[in-house]
């Protein structure tokens, strides 16, 4: 087994562990926390091309880690 990250050492699973269909245009977070948030630019296989909604910086995220951000979460964010 190859350890790709210290998440493995600490046994942290980032996967959402429930099914969600993620599409381009969705606003997602890549963990259980509210921020950072990303707009999905495109989806290809197991990966999503995401853009940080604040900074505009692009990145690749594992689709299995993306969670759609619920609209009510926005209201509580950074209160």
């Amino acid at each position, binding site marked *: 087994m190859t350890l790709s990250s210290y998440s493995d*050492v600490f046994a942290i699973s980032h996967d959402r562990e429930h099914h969600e269909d993620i599409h381009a245009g969705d606003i997602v977070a890549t963990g259980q*926390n509210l921020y950072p948030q990303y707009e999905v630019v495109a989806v290809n296989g197991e990966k999503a091309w995401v853009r940080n909604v604040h900074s505009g910086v692009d990145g690749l995220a*594992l689709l299995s880690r993306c969670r759609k951000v619920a609209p009510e979460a926005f209201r*509580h964010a*950074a*209160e």
Partner: protein
Amino acid sequence: MFATGIENSIPRIQHGRIRVDQMESCGHYRRWREDFDLVQDLGLSYLRYGPPLHTTLIGPERYDWEFADVTFAELRRRNIIPIVDLCHFGVPDWIGDFQNPDFPEQFARYARAFAERFRWVQLYTPVNEMFICAQFSAKYGWWNEQGTTERTFVTALKHIVRANVRAMQEILEVRPDAIFVQSESSEYFHAENPAAIKPAEVMNSSRFLSLDLNYGHRVDSEMYEYLLDNGMTQDEYHFFLGNSLRHHCILGNDYYWTNEHRVAADGLTRASGEIFGYCEITRQYYARYRLPVMHTETNIAEGPSGDEAVNWLWKEWANVLRLRNDGVPTVGFTWYSLTDQIDWDVGLREQNNRVHPVGLYDLNRQIRPVGRSYKQLVSDWGAVLPTQSICLTVPIVPPSEFGEQAAQRHADDARQLRDVELATTTDQMS
């Protein structure tokens, strides 16, 4: 010492029109009990924490202790050991900014008043990141006085470091066994090409200025000329040489991936990212000051992968271990801060209310992966002797033991040593 901190920066921006208050924007004033719960839940005993200076020091020798009284009583009840951060990038409106020559004495009196009110507090960072405070306020034009000249920078620097030294002196009068944990940014400047070597060398000398003055270490000769050319007098310089309290200090240093810089031939700098890393740069600081070391701040923003901060935590911890294994007495580590911050992505220069996701917890107080990792790291490594010797432990009196006989003996011994120190120091308070 494993620690975290409650981010409490309070610079003013936009020419004084806006007061940044991170404890307000991160919700600490409302959720402080919950924040202390989280500190304990992580298994931490040490917390970098301080009352908001701008609302506590309300006039010359006038104080409003309302918030400090309740929060510090709660810290004491929980036996959390605070490393008290008295000034974090800002001053009260009535003081104005760091160009004000009255700031050091007003601040020293405040430090004494705090120490008298909270005698059980032993660990202090009187002024946080003195060099950064002077640089961002008086050279980059970002905060407070928003100065942009060498003279405004030197003026801010000498006032800030003098305030720190005077505060240490006053606190020692009250609590002779006080320990001061500096929290200074550790920097390195890399020359991009041979023509950039000279400006990089100058910058690599200037990075030591705040600690040189604070520890009474003679500055490099070029820096001496620079200080005197830009408004520091010989008497002011000699104050620092004659009032060193370095033997009461822990060389706390902060390291972020932005702390290393590339220098071009014209002296312009840009971020280089991590090249040497914490271990090598701290070794340089240790070689200069020979004091026990503590990693007092680090973090990195969580990104699309989700484990960026987890990996950075592990990298920083590995650096601390390397340093310790090389024989540098390394006494602590800090992930800063407990929660996410606001607007630090632009160095607090703008008020965008943008979350900077660097905390162990997010602003809803939901733990982040790095928080879970830190908790595990503290649990795994908490019992390992940091300096590899039981003879090199930091003599800390926990709040629960303050006033006990052994603690009193310890304080009496410290007072005797301090009396000897004062009697043998040639230049006091000049």
